[in-house]
């Protein structure tokens, strides 16, 4: 299948290794990967600050660039921005735009629910705890939400991790507590955000986890920054990087 890579702006510049691992994983799953260097940012920071007009400019660019294509993104919140929140910006959306939004997938969701691939022949002999980032979980439905009483169905990240050779998955007691990142919240309410991050690091350390993983590098970057500052806790690693390991 031809897939078009949507690389969130901060991944491109700060964590290219995650996007590189995404390419490896998609290729291993049999996909032909395309990438356009005309892409920049989906507009999420602006949208979450309430600046809808500024976000709309970037959303328009994004929709034109990816028009009608099957798009994969290694971030739940950026995916959700495109697939769910482009409706909020006062844009006039064409049928093609709606299709583009609809065909934008988060990586683990794409692998498991679109391609039907669960075993990526990965090997990662470590204890790993899973941080389910909020937007992927509660907006895209990528897992069991602890608040809701839906029929239990494992999320795609759990399905993929279960097949990784040597990996022991530990779920924290608070399965889906927010890490406190929250975009500009992380800076505007730095102390609150950090306190939430500390608590989440503690929870993700349960069961002697060596690594914490998830499908949103923004949350992981925040958690890892706190982990490094305090000098204890599991190291952050993006799900794509684990799946790329052999």
């Amino acid at each position: 299948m031809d897939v078009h890579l949507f690389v969130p702006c901060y991944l491109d510049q700060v964590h290219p290794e995650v996007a590189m691992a995404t390419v490896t994983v998609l290729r291993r799953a049999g996909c032909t990967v395309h990438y356009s260097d005309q892409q920049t940012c989906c507009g999420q920071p602006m949208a979450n600050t309430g600046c809808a007009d500024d976000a709309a400019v970037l959303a328009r660019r994004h929709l034109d660039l990816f028009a009608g294509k099957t798009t994969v993104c290694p971030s739940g919140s950026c995916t959700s921005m495109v697939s769910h929140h482009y409706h909020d910006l006062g844009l006039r959306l064409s049928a093609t735009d709606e299709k583009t939004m609809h065909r934008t997938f988060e990586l683990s969701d794409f692998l498991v629910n679109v391609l039907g691939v669960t075993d990526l022949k990965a090997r990662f002999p470590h204890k790993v705890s899973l941080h389910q980032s909020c937007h992927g979980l509660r907006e895209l439905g990528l897992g069991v939400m602890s608040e809701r009483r839906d029929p239990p169905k494992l999320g795609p990240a759990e399905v993929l991790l279960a097949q990784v050779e040597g990996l022991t998955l530990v779920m924290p007691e608070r399965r889906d507590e927010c890490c406190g990142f929250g975009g500009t919240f992380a800076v505007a309410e730095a102390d609150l955000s950090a306190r939430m991050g500390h608590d989440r690091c503690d929870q993700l350390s349960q069961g002697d986890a060596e690594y914490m993983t998830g499908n949103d590098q923004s949350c992981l970057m925040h958690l890892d920054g706190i982990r490094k500052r305090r000098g204890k806790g599991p190291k952050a690693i993006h799900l794509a990087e684990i799946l790329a390991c052999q």
Partner: protein
Amino acid sequence: MTARVPQFHVDSEKFLADQERVGWHDGALWHLRYKRDLATQVVPDWEKLRDQAAAIKAHVLDHIPTLLSQFITNAEAAGWVVHLAPEADDLKRIVLDLLQKNGVTKAVKSKSMLTEECGLNHHLEANGVEVVDTDLGERIVQLRHEPPSHIVVPAIHLKRGEIGELFHEHLGTAKGEDDPIRLTRAARADLRKRFIGAQAGLTGVNFAVADSGAIVICTNEGNADLGTALQPLHIACMGVEKLIPTAADAGVFLRLLARSATGQPITTYSTHIRGPDPTRPGHQAHLVIVDAGRRRLFADDEHRRALSCIRCGACLNTCPVYRRASGHAYGTTVPGPIGAVLAPAMIGTAKAKELPFASTLCGSCTNVCPVKIDLHDQLLSWRRRLAREGHVPFSKRFAMKIGAQALSYPWLFSLGGKIARTFWGLARKGIPGPHAGWTKHRDLPPAPKQSFRGWWKSDGQNQGNPTNKDQDHG
């Protein structure tokens, strides 16, 4: 809502300064959330019950005028004296008038967020009526001269020892006494005297049943029952959004309310009152129906759903921000996610401008809400309204504008990225700059040598996509 301007950032920092208290506050509220989870697991079709409740509330919001006139007709037929209070001041005036006409100098009051919102206690006290809050948590905060920090558990921000000291000072318990049972007994003994001595009982209303004219009041302590059964005058105060069509609808909400709030199957007392008590000669029952800004919300299609709230507090308990900032940080009578959604409509966007940003938009509130208010989306839509009205700080708006401009040009974005990666090293060494909010508590990751787009150009695109043969597990 109280008149003071919420200062979330400043006030949350105050609470955060006591790290131990934060941990303990978070744990206490999470325990309520945990009990709520257990209680909802044993209800078959919990999610359907939420759908049903949301549908009833949507119907109510669409039919307020009809339901209101139906309710008033039935309430008056049942013997209630009905008063309408368009504004908070009207509520205060009506209640004070009634009390003065009846020569009341001592009143007891069961929990009512509406009267908190309107500042009723203060007004009555200033006019010579002693009002005693009879909900234990509310009594505690009343003795401390502070507002409740939570709508269901008003004194959740306090430790046992602090309550012990307070009771030592006001109720004469032994110094250092912090045994919850003995403290509760002391409060009970004191409250008994107040119940008996009061000439009037004030209450809130949880549900007002349109087709019967009855009101439903839910408490765990029975204080609304004792605070209406012993006094010759009952004044119930309700927001106009408390209307529900039938008693059968009350059944839906009673199943949801206590489970969502504390994990109990139902509140200990769910009392239906239909006018004055015919067995008590001279007993008077008055009902004050209050608008106080609600019509502004009714008129706001984007946000009117917030009026469906049944004040269960579940969205506070689950909110990771509320649990670490505490209710007082919000500076409004109703704190937490629902408070931040109501405040811009009730006290105005200018005053409430910080509150919709006091959230990570994690969405847990939306998932626990028994009447399915889309709380985190409401917060986001208030942020857009605030930005439109110019209430988002210029620095933020400016940054977003510049960002959107720069990000419209891939070359500018790449260049910016290159510059940033060069300076990254300096930032990591703790050199001050705009990244300070990040580095105050967190290390920056090492700067990569190359961006992804750089790698794609040099290596990535050439490493080759799989041939058909590789697709055997595709």
